[in-house]
């Protein structure tokens, strides 16, 4: 049943991936896209949210780009790059005749300025992805990055939104005393290097991106991309309304379709209900510390208990109830779409007998009470935890659900003031290092505040961060994933795709596993 479902997902994905190339593209027209919430701040370096990140690369291009399947990197504003023999430098060659959306030239100096701004440790939340850069030199159309150490993640980092290339002259000419103020002014009407340029933005209501006539990339017809004249984002927070609007033809694409409605929309002959592969993993983070903040004993510090909860969670049933059959069990802490995911990881297949045995071997033979923090108003959290309440009841664990609004939940989490919480993750960068540093390194944020700490993992990770040999790096990551699984600091749940419903006319649109929505080669079929 599982295999069948997976192959069905795979087929629909394959169909989605090939659709763009199958026909000659139509040029022109406006595509209207229903979003669940508006962007906040369109600065590549200083933004904080997926609402910005997932559309930013349409406005600002990067030197390298993630491929549409999310597995690799392709050339962007740079036409080629070479890595030094010792791995401690990288030379990128820019394409000839690059221009920003206002027609002014994009030079190597803009590249240096943009990357220097992006890697400034005092600015924004993303600078660590470029931390290996020591200095940047330019000459002609060549950009040389001198590194502190070999960095296998650098190509992926240069294909990530925060490394986008911005026009130095226009940015510095923006009003404001310092970088932050200039960024505020510039981000209201940004001029970038991406396939589109912002033309109108009524906050909370709609946003229009016009075609950038100076974009470098060519379409299938040999002429410059994008195909569309414009993309209009409509902000429609209520899921039902968004779907109704799509069905009425007032939208061509609607994002974040509730998984409960996927089957129904698949049956709608006017729509293409697409499940784009994602890097999204959902899990329950557990507090592994011996004592809780209030000084009381913490049953979750016992690895037997943590494993028991993992085995007692019936993933297939959860996938039915929460994702309506649109997910698959998590086997590693990282999604199966993440590079270096170890396909041999067993995960925790449902095994109630084993779970009971593990509980019996623990100090908590008679079970215990435990509280989980959920996000109030999240139907998924509710469905998940109501189901887990029953499943864990079978091994004597009485689950109490505490619903909190997101900000309170974050505050409690940051203070390690929780026993369990629901959590979801998507990668921002096409490399396993980001999720690994968050989930497994105590020195980052205490291993997503679980308190998990392993000297061995620390060592393996440090090695992998400068390991340019892919086979050796893969082996290091295999070990990290195995150690983590055995310690079970989290409850492994499921991976889910990005559910996007589109009119049948929409072709060539992609949401890549990182979440970025790409409109460059999208078009509306006649």
């Amino acid at each position, binding site marked *: 049943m599982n295999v069948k479902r997976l192959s069905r997902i795979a087929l629909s994905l394959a169909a989605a991936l090939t659709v763009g190339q199958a026909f000659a593209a139509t040029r022109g027209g406006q595509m209207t896209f229903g979003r669940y919430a508006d962007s906040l701040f369109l600065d590549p370096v200083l933004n904080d949210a997926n609402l910005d990140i997932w559309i930013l690369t349409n406005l600002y291009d990067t030197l390298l780009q993630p491929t549409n399947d999310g597995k690799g990197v392709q050339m962007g504003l740079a036409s080629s790059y070479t890595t030094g023999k010792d791995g401690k430098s990288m030379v990128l060659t820019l394409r000839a005749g690059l221009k920003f959306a206002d027609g002014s030239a994009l030079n190597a100096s803009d590249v240096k300025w943009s990357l220097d701004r992006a890697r400034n440790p005092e600015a924004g939340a993303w600078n660590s992805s470029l931390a290996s850069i020591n200095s940047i030199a330019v000459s002609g159309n060549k950009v040389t990055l001198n590194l502190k150490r070999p960095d296998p993640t650098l190509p992926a980092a240069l294909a990530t939104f925060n490394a986008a290339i911005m026009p130095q002259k226009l940015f510095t000419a923006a009003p404001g005393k310092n970088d932050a103020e200039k960024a*505020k002014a510039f981000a209201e009407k940004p001029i970038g290097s991406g396939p589109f340029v912002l033309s109108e933005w*009524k906050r909370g209501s709609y946003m229009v991106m016009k075609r950038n006539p100076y974009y470098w990339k060519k379409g299938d017809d040999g002429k410059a991309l994008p195909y569309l004249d414009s993309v209009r984002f*409509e902000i429609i927070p209520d899921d039902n*309304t968004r779907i*109704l609007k799509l069905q009425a033809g007032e939208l061509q694409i609607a994002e974040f379709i509730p998984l409960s409605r996927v089957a129904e929309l698949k049956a709608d002959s006017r729509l293409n209900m697409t499940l784009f592969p994602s890097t999204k993993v959902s899990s329950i983070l557990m507090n592994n510390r011996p004592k809780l903040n209030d000084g009381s004993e913490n049953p979750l510090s016992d690895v037997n208990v943590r494993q028991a909860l993992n085995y007692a969670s019936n993933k297939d049933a959860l996938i039915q109830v929460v994702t309506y059959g649109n997910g698959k069990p998590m086997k590693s802490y990282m999604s199966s779409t993440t590079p270096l995911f170890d396909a041999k990881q067993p995960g925790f297949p449902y095994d109630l007998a084993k779970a009971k045995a593990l509980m019996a071997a623990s100090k908590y033979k008679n079970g215990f009470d435990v509280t989980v923090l959920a996000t109030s108003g999240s139907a998924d959290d509710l469905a998940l935890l109501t189901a887990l309440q029953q499943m864990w009841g079978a091994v004597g664990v009485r689950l109490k659900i505490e619903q909190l609004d997101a900000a309170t939940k*974050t*505050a409690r989490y940051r203070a390690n003031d929780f026993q369990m919480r629901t959590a979801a993750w998507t990668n921002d960068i096409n490399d396993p290092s980001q999720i690994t540093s968050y989930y497994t390194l105590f020195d980052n944020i205490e291993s997503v505040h679980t308190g998990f700490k392993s000297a061995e993992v620390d060592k393996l990770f440090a090695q992998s961060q400068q390991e340019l040999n892919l086979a050796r790096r893969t082996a290091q990551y295999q070990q990290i994933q195995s150690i983590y699984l055995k310690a079970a600091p989290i409850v492994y749940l499921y991976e889910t795709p990005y559910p996007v419903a589109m009119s049948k006319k929409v072709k060539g649109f992609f949401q890549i596993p990182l979440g970025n929505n790409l409109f460059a080669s999208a078009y509306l079929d006649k």
Partner: protein
Amino acid sequence: MHASYVIRRLLQIIPTFLAVMLVVFLLVRLLPGDPASAILGDRATAEIVERTNRELGLDRPLPIQFGVFVRNLLQGDLGDSISLKIPVLRLIGERLPTTLFLTAYAAVLGVLMAVPLAVLAAVRRNTWVDAVIRAVFQVGLSLPVFYVALQLLSLLGARLGWFPIGGYGEGFGGHLYHLFLPALTLGLNLAAILVRTLRNSIIEVLTAEYVDFARAKGLRSRVIMTRHVLRNALIATVTLLGLNIGALIGGAVITETVFAIPGVGRLMVDAIFGRDYPVIQGLTLTFALIVSLVFLITDLIHARLDPRAELS
């Protein structure tokens, strides 16, 4: 006499306004979770959160923060939104007209539905006409707003295609067209309250002695209707509208979410969940000001309509 009354009432608003300022300032800071955590999310490190709080001036003692808030307010500056990074005043200027338009529209639709039906129900009291009118509105009043909204949307919007699904539209006509369903949703709610009360007050007038007296004097029933009944209905309507205007503006939150209308209701919810202090403060003060003024205006209208009412 009126002028001095108005001035006294306006002066009374000042202490209320000051109290609202202090309460909202303290209340938002009492909320668990800080703006930095809210905008940075789960992944931020302690250093980044600290740095952000410093940049926002939220690491300073509360009295100093309050002083800055008051000083800026006196200069007409409500600060910048923390998550959207634009001035709060501009944000409110963009969003408030939408909500006010929706509220006024809903009030008009509510009155248009309620007054004739209430008169009809009162004149035909205790007949099946009366029963049907009251039952329909009772059902409307007993169902959650989001449920009514979604039903209207899927029936009149999606299935019949008479109205657009959500949005605000362009120009006055566009607004009227796009906001019809949300205004109807809110209007139904208001009408349910109005009908219940108006019907009772009209019955009271119809059975009052002075109406009997008028009838005995031979006044035609149409004259009685307009001179006594409708006048009283109007007085009650204005009073009720004034009392409910705050609830109406506040009630726009869910309607705005369902119908994807970029008004202040949604802005407020987003700001609360995002701990966007300046936006919550600015919107609360705006709301308090509007509601106070509406109360004053309805009292004045009431006085003009009802000679018995005294302005005290």
